[in-house]
C-alpha cells in the first residue's frame, strides 16, 4: 500500500447526503476481476446521461472542481460491501474523502486501500462546502500525523484509530500483520468449539 502522510489539494464537492455504494459504482460495473478502471465509472449515473454524455451540472464534470479530495454529504458509502466503491474513488484519483459521517464498511475498505476517510463535524462540513463553492481553487490540507484538516483559516481535529493511522503512514496492511502471527492463530484454533 502507498504511504499516506499528508494530502494538500483542491477539492471536489458532492453536496449530497446518503450517497450509497450503488451511486458510487452501480452493480452493472462490478464484472471486472481486477481492481483497475473503476474510476471511469465513479458516480456513473450521476455523471453521464443515458446516451453516455456528461451531465454538466454534476460537480465531477465541472472544470472548476478538481483535486485529490472528495468532499461529500453526511453518511457517505452506505449500502453494499463492494470494495469496488473504494477502487472507483481511488481510481478517479482521490486520496481522501471528507464527510460528516461514513458507513462502516466503506470506511474499512477505504483504509485498507490507502484512501483516508476524514470525518468532520456537520458545521465544519457545511463551511467547507461554502468555501469551496466561493473559491474552488482553495487548497485543503489533511495532515494525518497531526490528525488535523485545515482550509482557509479553519481547522478541525479528526479521529482515526491509532493502529490504522500507523498502517497508512507506513504503507502496511492488515494481512502483513496477520501473516506474522500465524502461530498465535494456530494456538487459538486448538481451543475452538469441537462442532465447528
Amino acid at each position, binding site marked *: 500500500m502507498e504511504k499516506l502522510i499528508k494530502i494538500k489539494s483542491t477539492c471536489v464537492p458532492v453536496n449530497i447526503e446518503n450517497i450509497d455504494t450503488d451511486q458510487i459504482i452501480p452493480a452493472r460495473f462490478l464484472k471486472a476481476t481486477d481492481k483497475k478502471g473503476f474510476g471511469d465509472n465513479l458516480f456513473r449515473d450521476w455523471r453521464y446521461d443515458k446516451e453516455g454524455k456528461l451531465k454538466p451540472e454534476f460537480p465531477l464534470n465541472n472544470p472548476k472542481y478538481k483535486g485529490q479530495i472528495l468532499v461529500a454529504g453526511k453518511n457517505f458509502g452506505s449500502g453494499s460491501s*463492494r470494495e469496488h466503491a473504494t477502487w472507483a474513488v481511488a481510481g478517479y484519483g482521490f486520496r481522501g474523502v471528507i464527510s460528516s459521517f461514513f458507513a462502516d464498511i466503506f470506511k474499512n475498505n477505504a483504509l485498507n486501500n490507502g484512501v483516508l476517510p476524514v470525518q468532520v463535524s456537520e458545521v465544519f462540513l457545511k463551511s467547507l462546502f461554502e468555501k469551496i463553492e466561493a473559491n474552488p481553487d482553495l487548497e485543503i490540507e489533511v495532515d494525518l500525523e497531526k490528525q488535523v484538516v485545515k482550509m482557509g483559516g479553519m481547522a478541525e481535529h479528526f479521529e482515526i484509530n491509532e493502529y490504522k493511522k500507523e498502517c497508512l503512514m507506513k504503507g502496511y496492511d492488515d494481512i502483513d500483520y496477520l501473516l506474522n502471527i500465524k502461530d498465535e492463530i494456530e494456538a487459538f484454533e486448538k481451543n475452538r468449539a469441537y462442532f465447528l
Partner: protein
Amino acid sequence: MSKKTLFDKIWEAHVVKEIPNGPSVLYIDRQFIHEVTSPQAFDGLRKRGVPVFRPKQTIATADHNTPTINQHLPVKDELSKNQLDKLTQNCNEFGIELYALGHPKNGVVHIIGPELGITLPGSTYVCGDSHTATHGAFGSIAFGIGTSEVEMVLATQCLMQNKPKRMRINVNGKLNKGVTAKDIILYLISKLTTGGGTGYFIEYAGDTIRSLSMEERMTICNMSIEMGARGGLIAPDETTFEYINGREFAPKGEAFEKAVAYWKTLYTDDDAEFDKEYNFDASDIDTMITYGTNPGMGIKITGKIPTVDDFENDSEKNGLLKSLKYMDFHQSEPIMGRKIDYVFIGSCTNGRIEDLRAAAEIIKGRKKADNVTVWIVPGSKMVEKQAIEEGLDKIFKEAGIEMRQPGCSACLAMNDDKIPAGKYSVSTSNRNFEGRQGPGARTLLASPILAAAAAVTGKIVDPKEFL
C-alpha cells in the same frame, strides 16, 4: 462476573489477540465467497505467494451475476462468464468447495448457508456481501466485508476488527394479521433511519421476535445493514435448534446434543448493558412499503408520502425532494392504488420457501395482471426443488407466471434481470437506491404478500384484503 450480552459472549470467544490502541484479531469460523467480490482477493494471495490458510472453512457459490433462465446453457454475457470461470479456477487452485451454477446446492449465499446447516449459533461468519448479517438469525456474529478483508480471511482465517457498540431492539406484543417480518424490519429502519445503526451490532429481542420462524428471523437480521449496522443477531432457542437439527452439515446425534447444551448458554445476561436500546410495540406495526430511494423511506401501506414539513433540517428536506423527483411521486399523495409495472419476489431477504409459499397463497386461483411483469426467483436450488415438490410453480404458472431459476437476480440487477428506466417495481429485496434494479428503475420495497397482491392486481394494494 460482569453481565454479558449475547454479542459479547460470541465476540470474546473469537478474539485471538487484542492490539493495544487498535483492533482485535477476530477468528472467523466460516467464510462464504461468491464470484463478484472474490477474484481480486485471490489475485492478492497469488501476489503475496500465500495459500488459503483453511480452505475447508470457506464455501463458494455463484449467485450475484448468474442468469435466472436457461442455466444449463453457457452464460452469454462475456464479462459475467469470465467472472464465473475465474471463481471456478480460483476454487480449484486453492482447494475450496464450490457450488457452481446448476449444482444442487447452488444458490444465494445467505440462503444456502442456513439451509445446508453450515450456519450455526455461537459462530463467526463473513462474506464479501453486506447481507451476511442474515446468518445472525441463528445467534451468530455475521457481517459483510470488503475484498481486502476477504483476502485477509483466506490468508489467515482472521480479521482485524474494532469491537462495535451494542444496541438492542426489543419488539413486544402481538403482530396484527397480515403483518410480516419484512414489515417489522422496514418499520424499524423507517424509525432508526439508514444511519441509525452505524457503529453498532444489533440484538433483536422481545416476544414478537421470539415468536418468529427462523426464516422470518433471517429476513429481519438480513436488513440490519440497511440501518447502517454491520450485523444483527437473535439469541438461539428451540426454534433455532429444531431448524438446524438434521441439516446436512450440522452436527449429528450426540455431537448435536452437546452443541445444543452450549448454544443454550448463548443469551444476553439479565442486566447486561447496551450502548443503546429501543422498544417497539408490535401492534403499532402495519404493512409497510417504501416510497423513496433509501430503505429508511418507508410508510404504512395506508399512509401518505411525507412532505418537507415532516423533516427538520434542510438536507433531509432536500433528500426527500430528490427522492420524490426520481420516483416521480408527490408530497402527501397516498401510495395505495398506484399502478406498477414489475414485481420481483426473491433475494436473500425474501427468497426462501416460506416467502414463496406466502406469495403462492395469494396468487393461487388468481391471474397475473396484464400490465405487470412478474419475476419469482427462488433463493437456491433447494428452495426451487421444494417449491416444485409443493406445486408452487404450478400455482404461479396457472396465474401466468413462470418461476425462474435461483440467483440474486433483480435485487441488484447485475445480470439481465433489470427493471427498465422509469418503471415501478414492487420488490421483496432490500434496497431501493437509485438505479439499484437497473438504471432509472423505481423500486418499492415490500413483503412477499404485498408483492404477490401487486402481481395479481397490477397496483399497490393492501395484501391483508387477500388473506
